[in-house]
């Protein structure tokens, strides 16, 4: 059995794959060996390209006011007491690639607590759980495609990809568009995190500009006096939609 790779080993792999990558790749590859879990879980056959205008996937699930409650978007008010950590507002817009807002659609988030621990049985990182923080939230986008969450800044945490591996702080986002093809799960990062260059999950996006689109902007306009700091993050959903192909008829 070979020794576990070190961070330096993984950093070198990240460099190599970046040098070999086709410039301008907007999505991570399915196969990215520095992220070890991808090895046995990426399809080896090429995807079958479908351009059928009748595909069911050009429509998609819808959600409404019955699917969320008002408190879902405030992760700091889901328990009796105040969670520990730095309170933040995270807000932005969900757009499609033609710049149209995704209205009235479901946004879900989940994250570790301020100490870097998830409220998940399998997360046994010996950092404290916070009885006042679960770390999951939901909202519907408004008429401009806007979303807004109040939460606390998550901590970085260790994982077992390689020896002494740490993930930069991030919030997981789950997004729906108007078509099932646009379904997106991704992660939002915080600006200036020194762990970025060591993280094979973020670095799986080999194009620098594409990678930068996963990092929120600090936005003092979203800060609230005596209460919270603010981050702004817009999301653009990929994939064809029924209205996209019907644009000429509108």
């Amino acid at each position, binding site marked *: 059995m070979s020794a576990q790779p070190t961070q330096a080993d993984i950093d070198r792999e990240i460099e190599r794959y970046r040098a070999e990558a086709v410039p301008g790749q907007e999505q991570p590859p399915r196969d990215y060996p520095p992220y070890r879990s991808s090895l046995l879980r990426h399809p080896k056959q090429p995807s*079958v390209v479908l351009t059928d205008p009748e595909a*069911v996937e050009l429509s998609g699930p819808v959600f409404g006011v019955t699917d969320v409650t008002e408190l879902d978007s405030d992760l700091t008010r889901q328990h009796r007491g105040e969670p520990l950590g730095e309170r933040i507002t995270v807000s932005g817009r969900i757009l499609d690639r033609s710049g149209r807002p995704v209205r009235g659609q479901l946004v879900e988030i*989940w994250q570790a607590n301020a100490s870097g621990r998830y409220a998940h049985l399998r997360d046994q990182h010996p950092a404290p759980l916070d009885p006042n923080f679960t770390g999951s939230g939901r909202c519907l986008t408004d008429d401009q495609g806007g979303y807004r969450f109040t939460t606390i800044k998550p901590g970085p945490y260790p994982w077992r990809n390689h020896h002494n591996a740490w993930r930069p702080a991030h919030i997981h986002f789950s997004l729906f568009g108007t078509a099932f093809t646009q379904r997106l*799960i991704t992660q939002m990062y915080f600006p200036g995190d020194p762990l970025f260059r060591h993280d094979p999950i973020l670095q799986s996006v080999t194009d620098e500009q594409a990678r930068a689109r996963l990092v929120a902007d600090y936005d003092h306009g979203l800060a609230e006096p005596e209460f919270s700091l603010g981050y702004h993050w817009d999301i653009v959903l990929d994939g064809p939609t029924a209205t996209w192909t019907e644009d000429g008829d509108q």
Partner: protein
Amino acid sequence: MTPPPLPPTPAQTIGPFYGYALPFPGGGDPAPAGHPDAVTVHGRVYDGEGQPIPDAMLEYWQAAPDGSRAGAPGSMRRDPTTGAVLGRHGVDFTGFGRVATDADGHWALRTLPPPADAPYLAVCLFARGLLRALFTRIYLTDPGAGGDALLDGLPPARRATLLAVAERERVHGFDIRLQGREETVFLEFR
């Protein structure tokens, strides 16, 4: 002049810890309780060594039996008093399901059969190790040669990976293999 399309936000893996945030009670039951036409579709997700994947999440989207593709809200209907999930009210068919695989990599969905002109469930698969989602389809009935453009374009062995197996009355099996000789066909939409 149409402006150039906006660059998309890249995908990132769902990771292993989504379980307290995304799955919801009744996520695997788009069929209204007691509906006489309900079918069960189930199977396992396997990795490249043939091991079941215990931390995958599957989402399903389909046309309603009457052909509607509009869906309906209410898949994760909530109780405004307690915040708890009440579940679908059973009058509308929402067309949407979400199921996390269990410790044995198994999932099950109780739904209504899709219409004959779109006889498939669209599936979006997420898992730790998948940097972006995988799309596939489950055909509950074989539309036969000339019956479906996607299936018609595939060699027989690949085609077979998209067809559910009728196990018994109203129960269909469908396994997803991420690698190997019987690797499932995955789709990319343009």
